[in-house]
C-alpha cells in the first residue's frame, strides 16, 4: 500500500517486510538446497551415500542464527505494538458501539453516526476509540490503517477494550468487522471518511445540526437509527433480516409463540412485547435473531409512535 494512510503503517509494514525478507531468504535457501541435492546426489549420480551422523558445529550455527533473527523480529513487532497501545494525551474521543450487525460512532457532543454513514474523522488528529459491544464479540478493523481490536461485551464495571489511530491522508477507507458474529458478519461493513480539518469542521457542524433537528421532530426515527434497528429492518417495505416496519399496524401475521403458531393483529401491546421480549413471538418466515435491546419505556413509546407514522404513510 502506498503512502502513510495512518501512523501505524510504517511500523507494521517495516516489520512485515523485515520478516518477509528473512522468510524469503530462508525459504529460497532451503528449497535451493533441496533441489541441488536431488540433482547432485541422485541415486544415478551418487549410488554410494556418504556416512554422516551430524556435525555439532553446524547444529550450533543453525540454532544460534535463527535465535538472533527471531529476537529481531520480536523486537520490532513489540515496538509497533507498544505504539498502538499508547494513546496520545490530546486524542479526540469517539465512542464505538457495535451490535449485530451495525456500528455506531458517538462524538463528544453526542452526535451519532451509524453503519451507513460511517466514521468521519479529521486528518492528522489522533482519535481515541473505546470499543463497546452490546451483544457478542465483533472486531473493529480498518485494513488501510493497520488497526484492529476486538469489540468485546463487558460485564458492568470492567474496562472497555480500546484502540486509536491518526489518519494521514484524506480519503475513504473500508471498515470491516473481523470477528465472526453470525449471519451478517460479512455485511457488517462501514467506511472511514478522512477529511481535512476545514472539511471536517464544516461536516461536523452540519451533521450535529441535522441530528438535533431529527431528534426533536421525530424521536422514533432517530432511535431507529441510533439503536441500530435499521441494520435489520427497512422502512420501505423490503425484507431484510427482520420484517419491514412499514405498514405494520393493523397487519395480520402468523407468529410462533413457544413453538406454537397463532395468528395476531399487530397493535401497540404486541409491538411493546416484540420490543421488550423479542424472543417471545417469532414472525413466521424469520429466524429468532432479534437481540433483546435495552430500551427505556419512553424509547419504546417513541418507537411505537414512529411505527405508527410509517403505517400512516402507506395508508395515504
Amino acid at each position, binding site marked *: 500500500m502506498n503512502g502513510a494512510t495512518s501512523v501505524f503503517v510504517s511500523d507494521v509494514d517495516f516489520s512485515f517486510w523485515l520478516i518477509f525478507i528473512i522468510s524469503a531468504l530462508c525459504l529460497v535457501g532451503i528449497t535451493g538446497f533441496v533441489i541441488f541435492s536431488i540433482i547432485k546426489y541422485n541415486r544415478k549420480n551418487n549410488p554410494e551415500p556418504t556416512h554422516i551422523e551430524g556435525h555439532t558445529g553446524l547444529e550450533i550455527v543453525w540454532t544460534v542464527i535463527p535465535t538472533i533473527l527471531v529476537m529481531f523480529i520480536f523486537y520490532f513487532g513489540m515496538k509497533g505494538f507498544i505504539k498502538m497501545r499508547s494513546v496520545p494525551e490530546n486524542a479526540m474521543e469517539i465512542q464505538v458501539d457495535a451490535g449485530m450487525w451495525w456500528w455506531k460512532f458517538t462524538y463528544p457532543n453526542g452526535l451519532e453516526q451509524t453503519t451507513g454513514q460511517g466514521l468521519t474523522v479529521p486528518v492528522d488528529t489522533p482519535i481515541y476509540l473505546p470499543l463497546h459491544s452490546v451483544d457478542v464479540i465483533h472486531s473493529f478493523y480498518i485494513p488501510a490503517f493497520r488497526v484492529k481490536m476486538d469489540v468485546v461485551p463487558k*460485564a*458492568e464495571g*470492567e474496562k472497555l477494550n480500546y484502540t486509536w489511530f491518526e489518519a494521514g491522508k484524506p480519503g475513504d477507507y473500508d471498515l470491516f468487522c473481523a470477528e465472526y458474529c453470525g449471519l451478517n458478519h460479512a455485511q457488517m461493513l462501514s467506511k472511514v471518511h478522512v477529511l481535512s480539518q476545514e472539511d471536517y469542521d464544516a461536516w461536523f457542524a452540519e451533521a450535529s445540526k441535522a441530528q438535533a433537528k431529527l431528534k426533536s421532530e421525530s424521536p422514533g426515527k432517530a432511535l431507529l437509527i441510533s439503536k441500530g434497528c435499521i441494520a435489520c429492518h427497512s422502512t420501505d417495505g423490503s425484507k431484510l433480516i427482520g420484517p419491514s416496519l412499514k405498514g405494520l399496524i393493523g397487519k395480520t401475521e402468523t407468529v410462533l409463540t*413457544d413453538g406454537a403458531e397463532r395468528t395476531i393483529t399487530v397493535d401497540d401491546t404486541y409491538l411493546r412485547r416484540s420490543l421488550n*421480549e423479542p*424472543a*417471545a413471538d417469532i414472525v413466521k418466515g424469520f429466524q429468532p435473531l432479534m437481540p*433483546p435491546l435495552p430500551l427505556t419505556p419512553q424509547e419504546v413509546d417513541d418507537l411505537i409512535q414512529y411505527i405508527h407514522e410509517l403505517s400512516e404513510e402507506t395508508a395515504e
Partner: protein
Amino acid sequence: MTEQTATVEIPHHHDETGTRLGFWLFLYTELFLFAAFFLIYAVYRSNYLVEFRTAAESLNTGIGTQNTIILLASSLTMVLSLNALKAGKARMAKTFLQFTITLGLAFLVIKGFEWGAKFDHHLFLQTTKGIAAGEGSLLLNPSAEMLPVGQVLFFGLYFIMTGTHALHIVIGLIWMIIVYVWISKGSINPDNYGTLERCGLYWHLVDLIWIFLFPLYYLVA
C-alpha cells in the same frame, strides 16, 4: 482351523506396574479437568473479590469440615481395605470397603442437604439482568431477588464444581460396589488386587480434589 468360540486375544503378559502407570496418567487428566475449574475460580475471585467473600459466607463451614473429615476417613478405610487384601484377609477387606462405601454415601447425603438448603434460598441461577427469565427455565424463580453478578458466578461455580466432584464420588461408589462383588466372587483376591488398588487410587484422587475445594469455598470468606 478348528472351531473357536473366544475372540483371539493377544496373549499379553500382565504388567501391573505398567497398568498402574497408565492409571496415574488417567488421574492426571482428571486433575486437569478440575484445574480448568480452579483457574476459572481464581480469575473470577480476583475480579469479584467482595462478592465472592460475601457469597462464601452463606456456606456452612461446619458442614464442610464434617464432610472433609468423612472423606478423609473413607480414604483411610480404603487404604486399610487394600492392605487387608494384600495380607490375604479378603473378608476384612470387604468390611473396610463397606465402611468406605458408607462414608461416601454419608458425604453425598450431607452434600444433598446442603444443596437443598441453597435451592430453598434461591441461591441458584439468579441473574441480574433477567435474561434467564425469557428462557423459561423451571429452576428459576423470577420473583426472587436478583443477586449481584459476582455472587451469581460464585454460586454457578460452586454448584458445578461440587457437582462434578459429587459425580466423581458416585462413579467411585459404583466402582467400589463392583469391586466388592468381585472380591466376593474371588476374582479379586490377594494375588490379584490390582483392580482394588486402582479403585483406591481413584478414591484418593476424589479426596485430593476435595482437599482443595474445601478451603476455597468454605474457608476464605
